[in-house]
């Protein structure tokens, strides 16, 4: 009996000790296969022309990132991570303020509670000077109060409007906010389609709920009436019941706000029910997956998106150059073209580094001031201008409206 207990206690101690040892391994930043060092024409490199050929030196600038590399949102998080690592490697050929940067990338597993644990670790243990993240709005909203209380800049990569609702002192956003996408969609319905009766089918997750709330609030501004609204859960496999209810209200156009696979199911169901109304989607379907799933039913679907989807739509040649370089570099690093989410991550880090460079320091207050003066920074998502009151930085011009035709995207008819 005694011996057994001694062994038991010893095993317990060993268990705790193992835990301590384990933490030493498992470093988060795995480097991707080395891509040849191309010069990037981000705003940063223009400043560091006085290059020491030896590269940056000194204490690395610690930057934290939280992405959903696993869990349901990993289609967002994995490309973001790839983009961040790729950019880190390129930046470290010249460094920022003469110093290299070090990204500590945590995985929140698509769970906002894990995101909170992760941000606490980044702030207290890794002592990062800024945080990028999260991939999903729920995680971003969960960590926002923490970075705010700590007075650390947060570069958001998610779309929900609430992220840049008060207090905005310490959060800036890279991707276009939901409101921009909603504005683009509703504007298109009003001006180009010239329709007024709208039905909304939205996902019940945070993304869809946010879109729905925005549409309802602003429909009147565009001369539109919401005649029916229904919702579905992301994994629902059949939406004919909801669409039957919608059909009964005689709408002129159906707006579907959600992320895959729901909108694809909706497209197929609409076809099945013989609904001929036009389908206007959200930027959540700005990916190949929607076309693959929807097949024939995806033809003709219209939605707002960043210009990355239809490269001919770039009107700013400087932006086109940057985007081309980004696309090439991403393809080299990962073997796939970059989805829009990769562009968000690229943009978030670029904006942060630009601010650090202009501030000339890594002090939080200096970065904050520099971010608020951001002008004309170009990323795949658009051209950014932050002010103390506008932490979204983009305008409706940065979005365009596209249509699915022949299994790919073209500019929607004007």
């Amino acid at each position, binding site marked *: 009996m005694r011996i057994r207990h001694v062994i038991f206690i010893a095993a317990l101690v060993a*268990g705790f000790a193992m835990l301590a040892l384990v933490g030493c391994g498992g470093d988060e930043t795995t480097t991707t296969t080395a891509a040849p060092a191309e010069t990037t024409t981000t705003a940063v490199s223009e400043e560091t022309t006085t290059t020491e050929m030896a590269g940056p030196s000194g204490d690395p600038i610690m930057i934290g990132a939280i992405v959903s590399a696993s869990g349901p949102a990993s289609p967002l998080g994995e490309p973001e991570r790839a983009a961040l690592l790729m950019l880190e490697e390129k930046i470290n050929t010249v460094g920022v303020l003469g110093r290299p940067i070090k990204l500590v990338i945590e995985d929140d597993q698509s769970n906002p509670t894990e995101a909170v644990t992760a941000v606490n670790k980044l702030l207290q243990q890794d002592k990062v000077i800024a945080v990028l993240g999260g991939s999903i709005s729920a995680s971003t909203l969960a960590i926002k109060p923490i970075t705010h209380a700590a007075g650390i800049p947060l570069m958001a990569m998610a779309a929900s409007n609430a992220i840049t609702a008060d207090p905005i002192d310490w959060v800036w956003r890279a991707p276009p906010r939901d409101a921009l996408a909603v504005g683009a969609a509703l504007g298109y319905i009003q001006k180009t389609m010239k329709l007024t009766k709208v039905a909304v089918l939205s996902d019940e997750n945070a993304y869809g709920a946010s879109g729905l709330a925005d549409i309802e609030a602003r429909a009147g501004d565009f001369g539109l009436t919401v005649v029916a609204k229904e919702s579905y859960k992301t994994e629902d496999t059949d939406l004919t019941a909801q669409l039957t209810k919608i059909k009964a209200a005689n709408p002129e156009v159906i707006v579907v706000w959600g992320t895959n696979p729901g909108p694809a199911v909706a497209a197929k169901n609409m076809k099945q029910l013989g609904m001929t109304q036009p389908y206007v989607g959200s930027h959540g379907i700005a990916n190949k997956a929607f076309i693959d799933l929807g097949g024939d039913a995806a033809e003709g679907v219209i939605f707002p998106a960043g210009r990355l989807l239809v490269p001919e739509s770039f009107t700013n040649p400087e932006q086109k150059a940057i985007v081309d370089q980004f696309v090439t570099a991403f393809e080299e690093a990962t073997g796939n073209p970059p989805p829009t989410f990769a562009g968000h991550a690229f943009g978030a880090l670029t904006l942060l580094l630009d601010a650090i460079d202009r501030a000339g320091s890594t002090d939080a207050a200096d970065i904050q001031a520099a971010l608020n003066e951001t002008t004309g920074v170009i990323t795949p998502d658009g051209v950014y201008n932050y002010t103390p009151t506008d932490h979204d930085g983009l305008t409706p011009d940065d979005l365009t409206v596209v249509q699915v035709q022949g299994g790919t995207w073209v500019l929607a008819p004007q």
Partner: protein
Amino acid sequence: MAAVLSFLKRHSAFIGFAVVAMAAPLFTQNIYYLSVLAFMGTRFMIVLGLNLLMGQAGQISLGHAAFAGIGAYGSAILTTRWEVNPWAAMALSALLAATVAGVIGVPTLKLKGHYLAMGTLGFGEIVYILLVQFKWLTNGTDGISGIPSLSLAGIDFGKPQAFHWLVWGVALIMLRISLNLVDSRVGRSLKALHRSEAASMSLGVNTAYRKVQVLMVSAVFASIAGSFYVHYVHFVSPSSYTLTFSVILATTVVIGGLGRVWGAVWGSILMMVLPEFLRQYQDYTNLVFGVMLILIMIFLPGGIVSIGGAADALRRRIGGASGRSGGDAAPEGGS
């Protein structure tokens, strides 16, 4: 003096464990490790209760995440909306969890085997759906943030080390209660009803009452654990209380060992440490859990805690036939 020594000897396992658990935070300043240890404590509380229900009373619950969720959301809502004192909120939430357990337990625990498993699963799912749908109360999938830390008499339990001692202090109390319960009259009637419900009923054991009692105790443990968790993370969302979590809880109990309360200790440690090893292969974690569960059920059905007994039996068999009987003479229930 002899009395003290014999007391120490009888409870050596408990005392040893308590010392290790409480001393752990002295060996590291690393906030991340401290939080893992603290979460091990809250996980342990839930698993302890579930071990009583599944191991001692022989019932099964695939919906236990719901009780942790009730504690978590109860604390979250009461402290953020109505600024109720966090301790009072914890107590109220535990009371709610116990009530729900009582109400749902009466009809559910009449079921057996698969029906019981499914009934508890259905209950757990309904609670999850309510957490997501009742946006006016729970904020739905957005979750509730800004939950305050616990504090008492000037001690701020938001600090990792203080929190660790608080959580493990309570967990050790729960462990002691469980160990005593198992050795008590209540514990014996639970064991009897586990072996044969009909027989124990014929001997005057009020089996229905006992089963509901254990469910309520396990619900209270889970609720308190949920409350502690949100007061440390300061955030709650429904995605923490899914069916998968309930399954992992049941898995933890089984892998640790159903027959003894100490199984809960082994299970909790293993199931919290393992994902840390699998950090690089996050996605594989559940696969490993599932396969481990199957392997344990086939090869070591008593769980980790029975390794000692199995090793003994093996040793005896290797040592050749002796006059000893096959059964382990040690009393059940730990010390």
